[in-house]
């Protein structure tokens, strides 16, 4: 994915560095000249074990650092340093590794951090664009020139268009940091800077959870909580809808490890519902139920039909805690037979009984298995029903997320040990007050997924058609983008070719600032490129892991001196603040380390058990078990719903949502978009039953690649080789296309074309192909991606309610390339 101009810059830099650092003893000059292409470590090539043998080697230091990327886990790294270079990366080695006080062991990515720090793609000094936008041609400039260019343009754009023309793009590259925190953008230093300068256009939602966050907000009120993953130790049956921690939360202190330990304790049966035979299954499941993508709500409806018909629902729970299950709790304003039971039994407006046979045709699951599954779920208490975030990342994902929760509600598993709400698993976190980013004077907010539209047609976007919040419509388009630690400018946003078209028009968005470590595909579209420090080059605290009953804080110390001319985001924002006339207000006179000391001291006043700065620095990782045992979502509500109501308008679990009925009546929706007061199944564009399957017969879904966290680490050669980017296809679909394992194939639809190798595997449902998201977009001269970047094929058409990314709702055809 690297462009030629940047590579040549890096080659020059290598040679300088190689001579300066005198590592030629480890290889010939010829070998090192190839470093950018074949050897991922340009700076140091003496391995740890080789150095152990060297009697003359300088003394080794070990410094605690962290991997702060967006996998949902967060890992401590023990960096071994010699002569100012990282020689190898260890992880948590403290204690006896007993579960409950276990080691938080980094995965293959964290263990490869050295190759990310010393990567040939590193941005080395500030650069400004000199070619067309996206062409990748840049010229080196001084930091002073960069700051001035940025401040001048920011002032000009604010003066001309107002602060709502300034946008902070979604970015999760360093979301685990404290000073360096990139997500949510409102918690970043860029937000603090902008809030001192009049504010910026907000966004809501995120690329991970847009539809479930919007959907379950109407069911439970707010972000739907889930029981701690550790609570699986207390269950008898575990039902996983598209939940795959073995490929998404792989840390040895994270969800997959807790899942395994908890199951060893409960010996609970595990049912995995997923179009892929995932690594979470992989012989650990008791049953794998392959399902057509986008049809989970139909499966739930079929299960509900059996549960209702066979009297397996928890009627007392539905009566006391819920709204709209049947006529008894249906709100007054709702239509007759507008309740859930009527929908399932065929007495609702569509008149269709959602029998197992009906669900079978839609989901591809045999009727008898649906019946068995319903009987097992209905007769096993407690039952831990949990959904990952794949099922909701669809064009009907709001409905799907609510439907899966419905299964937990019908069976009365909400609010009890060993049960769950049907939302994703929760856990324990150590409260820690963060860097204050101040208030944004601007109220207006858009869905994070609609920023390309806000560039191209901002003033046309309204509240009831495009989900604009805080205002009836946008008044100005986006003219200035801050893109900090984000590859969502291009790579991780849908429909890359459309994004390219919009960004290429320099009259639309006038200034794009990218702050990052590497020449990502997003960085190529910068007008101004500011080289950021990696976690290894600065001091920070890392936290926010999803970690069951034991959470932790990491002291991520500075391991090495900053490389090249890279600077911290704190220093950058401080310098820009000074040029915007708010320097003192931004820093409050503190350095980065002084802020960390200040924040820890503040938190220790509230929580005296926290270690002091020096003790924390020494211990590296501070662990704490949940003092209240297993976290159970909605336990208080279950105990006393009158005293502890939910934050829904009724205070109860809303199976029928009056708020959604109102939205459904008022919003302007595109054809086939469905918003419904009940958690129904709805067909969508590019779904399994779309007429477009005549042209594009295969459903394409994404998944998480084990060698990347989204796109982070996607430029580390060792990781790319360890887990190859491949398109999964069933032998039945491969055979009819003449494709054998390892063949190069073309995946295409109306939005673009991708060339990548095929993995012909029985581990995926026929009719479905899968491509892991996050590969670094690499178009050839015809615009065909050569890297397997799924967002060439995904759509920017948003989901109906959340206006979120339907990343797994795609139809494609595949040919042998």
């Amino acid at each position, binding site marked *: 994915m690297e462009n030629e101009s940047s590579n040549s810059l890096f080659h020059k830099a290598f040679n300088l560095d190689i001579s300066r650092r005198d590592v030629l003893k480890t290889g010939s000059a010829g070998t090192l000249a190839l470093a950018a292409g074949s050897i991922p470590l340009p700076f140091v090539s003496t391995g740890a*074990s080789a150095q152990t043998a060297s009697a003359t080697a300088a003394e080794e230091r070990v410094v605690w650092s962290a991997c702060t990327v967006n996998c949902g886990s967060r890992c401590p790294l023990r960096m071994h340093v010699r002569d100012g270079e990282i020689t190898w990366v260890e992880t948590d080695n403290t204690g006896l590794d007993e579960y409950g006080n276990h080691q938080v062991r980094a995965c*293959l990515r964290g263990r490869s951090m050295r190759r990310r720090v010393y990567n040939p793609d590193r941005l080395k000094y500030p650069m400004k664009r000199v070619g067309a936008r996206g062409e990748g041609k840049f010229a080196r400039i001084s930091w002073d020139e960069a700051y001035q260019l940025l401040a001048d343009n920011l002032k000009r754009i604010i003066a001309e268009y107002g602060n709502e023309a300034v946008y902070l793009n979604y970015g999760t590259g360093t979301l685990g940091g404290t000073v360096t925190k990139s997500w949510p953008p409102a918690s970043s230093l860029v937000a603090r800077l902008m809030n001192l300068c009049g504010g910026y256009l907000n966004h809501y939602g995120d690329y991970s959870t847009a539809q479930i966050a919007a959907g379950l907000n109407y069911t439970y009120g707010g972000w739907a909580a889930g029981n701690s993953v550790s609570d699986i130790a207390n269950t008898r049956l575990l039902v996983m809808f598209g939940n795959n921690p073995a490929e998404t939360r792989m840390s040895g202190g994270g969800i997959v*490890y807790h899942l395994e330990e908890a199951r060893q304790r409960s010996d609970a049966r595990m049912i995995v519902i997923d179009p892929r035979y995932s690594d979470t299954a992989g012989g650990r499941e008791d049953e*794998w139920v392959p399902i057509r993508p986008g049809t989970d709500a139909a499966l739930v409806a079929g299960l509900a039909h059996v549960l209702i018909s066979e009297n397996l629902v928890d009627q007392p729970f539905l009566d006391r805690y819920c709204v709209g299950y049947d006529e008894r709790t249906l709100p007054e304003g709702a239509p007759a037979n507008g309740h859930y039971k009527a929908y399932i039994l065929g007495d609702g407006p569509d008149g269709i009984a959602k029998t197992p046979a009906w669900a*079978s045709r839609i989901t591809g699951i045999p009727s008898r298995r649906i019946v068995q599954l319903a009987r097992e779920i209905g007769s096993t208490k407690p039952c831990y029903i949990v959904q990952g975030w794949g099922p909701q990342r669809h064009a009907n994902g709001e409905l799907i997320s609510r439907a899966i929760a419905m299964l937990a509600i019908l069976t009365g598993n909400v609010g009890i040990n060993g049960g769950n709400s049907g939302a994703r698993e929760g856990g324990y976190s150590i409260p820690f007050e963060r860097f204050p980013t101040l208030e944004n004077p601007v109220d207006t907010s858009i869905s994070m997924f609609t920023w390309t539209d806000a560039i191209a047609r901002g003033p046309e976007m309204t509240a009831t058609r495009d989900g604009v919040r805080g205002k009836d419509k946008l008044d100005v388009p986006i003219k200035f983008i801050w893109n900090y630690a984000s590859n969502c400018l291009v790579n991780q946003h849908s429909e890359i070719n459309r994004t390219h078209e919009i960004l290429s028009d320099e009259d639309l968005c006038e200034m794009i600032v990218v702050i990052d470590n590497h020449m990502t595909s997003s960085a190529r579209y910068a007008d101004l490129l500011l080289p950021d420090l990696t976690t290894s080059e600065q001091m920070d605290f890392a936290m926010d892991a999803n970690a069951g009953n034991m959470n932790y804080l990491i002291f991520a110390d500075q391991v090495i001196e900053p490389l090249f001319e890279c600077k911290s985001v704190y220093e950058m924002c401080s310098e820009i603040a000074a040029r915007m006339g708010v320097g003192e207000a931004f820093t409050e006179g503190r350095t980065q380390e002084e802020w960390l000391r200040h924040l820890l001291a503040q938190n220790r006043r509230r929580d005296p058990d926290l270690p002091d700065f020096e003790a924390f620095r020494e211990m590296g990782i501070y662990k704490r078990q949940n003092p209240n045992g297993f976290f159970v979502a909605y336990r208080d509500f279950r105990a006393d719903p009158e005293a502890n109501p939910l934050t829904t308008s009724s205070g109860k679990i809303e199976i029928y949502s009056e708020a959604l009925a109102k939205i459904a009546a008022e919003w302007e929706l595109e054809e086939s978009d469905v918003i419904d007061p009940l958690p129904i199944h709805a067909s969508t564009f590019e779904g399994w039953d779309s007429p477009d399957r005549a042209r594009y017969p295969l459903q394409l879904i994404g998944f998480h690649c*084990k060698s990347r966290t989204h796109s982070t680490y996607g430029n580390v050669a060792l990781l790319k080789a*360890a887990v190859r980017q491949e398109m999964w296809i069933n032998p039945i679909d491969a055979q009819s296309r003449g494709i054998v394992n390892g063949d190069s194939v073309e995946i295409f639809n109306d939005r673009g074309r991708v060339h990548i190798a095929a993995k012909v*595997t029985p581990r995926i449902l026929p009719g479905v192909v899968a491509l892991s998201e996050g590969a670094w977009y690499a178009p050839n001269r015809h615009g065909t991606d050569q890297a397997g970047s799924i967002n060439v094929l995904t759509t920017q058409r948003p989901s109906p309610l959340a206006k979120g990314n339907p990343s797994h709702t795609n139809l494609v055809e595949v040919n042998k390339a």
Partner: protein
Amino acid sequence: MTQYGFYIDSSKCTGCKTCQLSCKDYKDLDVDINYRRIYEYAGGSWQADGDTWQPSIFSYYLSIACNHCAAPACVPVCPSGAMHKRSEDGLVVVDTDTCIGCKSCAMACPYGAPQYSARKGHMTKCDGCYERVAEGLKPVCVESCPLRALDFAPMEELHERYGNLAEVAPLPSASLTGPSIVIKPNRNARPVGDTTGSLANPKEV
């Protein structure tokens, strides 16, 4: 002589490859050298039934490094004597000062453990992290495993704790070289010589 060996819990292994990458970082290996290789073995078929599908498929992972065999195939074929089995711990190690890089060991080993490094100009392989072991530590791969699916200990201890299984598909028969490993099989495991599945990731090992 104490013979050390690896325990591999294939029932826990999710194929995450942390063992492989932690080794590659510690030993500073190039892209194409894998002291530890993670084999994905998969197979089975699908039956259509009207609009529905019924799978009958399986997959599992096996993380294999050097098995430090009782009768290592690599040692007797080495013309320089560089490949040797250490008397103190039974680990099979290549003396890189002596090795001429002829690749005979690579051809003889049924597990693909010895690999030629073009950069270094000699054979390379897993040495069981014998320097760490001498310090009372376990090999880097073992201590890295997020799922605690690997262990390393004297074989007597491993046999006592975990049994005697040392072969499942797609490995060769243990009778060839007497590998110093104990495997806890995945529920999906197939026996050596199985033809119902195949190696699903040939380019990753």
